[in-house]
């Protein structure tokens, strides 16, 4: 868009391109730098994960990419364009499930479709069959307060999925799930991703999850978050759980674990001694 005259711009090759993004929060007394010159990219159809210590700015980065929080500096391109108002371009699953208490499971799931203008009846009939796949069959009429944490997360995930965007930002989507349900969701997510060719940017605390799912993994430093490391995962696709025992998997996992451990120690230290 910006450089349309001079042939294909470099950002056109990416679904999501973040260049030199910084962000600070302020309160009355001090400035809290959260992100420092973060750059990353996600190609079309790629599955990219971000891991980093708690509080390093991962959710903030997602808020910036989705367009609800402005960056202090830097550029964000979504679908090759730098749009000032880019809300609604990506499907965003926030870390908190944020189910609307006054909507039943079914009506929460179709929220994004309704916002996009789909008639409620049509949206519902599209969503109904998927509830079963998410272990939510029979719960369509239940209000969120009667759901377990894991169920709430699956409802939020389904809501994001049904928003039908090519780019999905998933902020710890499976954090509240038990190992078994989580592995089911992994398989389902990989299946959908392969079938639809979606582009996924994924935040997780779980290194194994990152290696199993991703094409590439970014490791962030403790706050202020910077990109500390980028690791291409060279395991073959399609991925299976059996791979988690393979030599290559364990090697890549340990590289990430080591990088993360250094940062987490630092993160605890900076928390103990506030600036």
């Amino acid at each position, binding site marked *: 868009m910006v450089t349309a005259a001079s042939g294909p711009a470099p950002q056109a090759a990416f679904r999501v391109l973040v260049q030199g993004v910084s962000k600070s929060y302020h309160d009355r007394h001090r400035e809290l730098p959260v992100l420092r010159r973060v750059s990353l990219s996600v190609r079309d159809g790629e599955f990219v994960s971000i891991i980093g210590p708690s509080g390093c700015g991962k959710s903030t980065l997602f*808020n910036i990419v*989705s*367009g*609800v929080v402005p960056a202090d500096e830097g550029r964000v391109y979504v679908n090759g364009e730098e749009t000032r108002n880019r*809300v*609604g*371009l*990506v499907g*965003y699953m*926030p*870390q*908190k*499930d*944020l189910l*609307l*208490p*006054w*909507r*039943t499971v079914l009506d929460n799931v179709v*929220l*994004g479709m*309704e*916002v*996009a203008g789909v008639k409620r009846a049509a949206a519902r009939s599209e969503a109904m069959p998927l509830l079963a796949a998410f*272990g939510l*069959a*029979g*719960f*369509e*009429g*239940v*209000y*969120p*307060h*009667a*759901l*377990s*944490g*894991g*169920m*709430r997360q699956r409802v939020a995930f389904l809501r994001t999925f049904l*928003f039908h965007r090519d780019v999905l930002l998933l902020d710890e989507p499976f*954090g*509240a799930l*038990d190992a078994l*349900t989580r592995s089911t969701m992994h398989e389902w997510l990989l299946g959908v991703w392969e079938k639809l060719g979606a582009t996924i940017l994924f935040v997780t605390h779980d290194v194994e999850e990152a290696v199993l799912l991703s094409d590439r993994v970014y490791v962030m430093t403790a706050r202020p978050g910077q990109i500390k490391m980028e690791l291409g995962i060279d395991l073959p696709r399609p991925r299976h759980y059996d791979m988690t025992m393979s030599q290559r998997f364990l090697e890549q996992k340990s590289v990430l674990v080591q990088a993360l451990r250094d940062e987490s120690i630092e993160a605890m230290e900076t928390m103990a001694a506030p600036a």
Partner: protein
Amino acid sequence: MSTREKSYPAGSFSSSHEGGRLAPAAVAAANRYALTLLLAMGGMLVWQAITYFGSIPRWQLPSPWEVLQVLGSEPGLMARHALVTAQEALAGFAIAVALGFALAVAISHSRVFERAVYPYVVASQAIPIIAIAPVLVIWFGFGLTPKIIVIVLITFFPVAINTVDGLRNVDRDMLTLMRTMGASQWQVFRMVKFPSALPLFFSGVKIAAAVSVIGAILGEWVGANEGLGYLITVSKAQFLTARVFASILVLSLMGIALFFFVSSIERWATPWARRDAGPSVDMETRR
């Protein structure tokens, strides 16, 4: 997954969800009103005893039996005046709810409007109604209008204030979520702000319902030729104290009826707020 999930039957869930709760709820309600009625009967017995054994003249304190007899002997009279008062109360209440809600929406959506109008909304409650009611009668006569104005003045306030609070207390993260989806202002209001404010809105409306009957009486007190307030004034002058009490009884029944009418609408409109099924799992699992 957990046993919590298994405890719900599959299938047409919403109906079984309701059905499972209805019967115990009805029993609980019956229990509660049984107590209320019991208390009323006990009070009446004491009252009857006082008037029977005591030496209070009947024009000062009639017995409950005499009060009930008024209702039986002059049903036409009571009904006619009650109908007038009910009309005033309902009309005033309806206008107050609409006005209170509209004001709240405007106040919570426009800084300018808030600065300009909110202080007057609060100031309106400092108006001595007793003092301006006669003026209203001078302006509008003995008809419906001055009563409605009095009722609206008293009852729009709890609706407006509660609704403003409700609209402000909406979860900011939910608003952000709606923004990530590119929702319009109207969609945000319809899908998040409005339902989020409903419980507090209904708190205000319930207060308004209970108070609107008083407003009607106040309006009639100053200038009227019909209505229960008028009947009370006239009967008091003739020392027909039993009739005064009978009118008060009818008034309270009207207030109760309006209140429960609002309560049942509230239950219908906010089904998610019915959490009598036990403690919410939010406490343990919400992140």
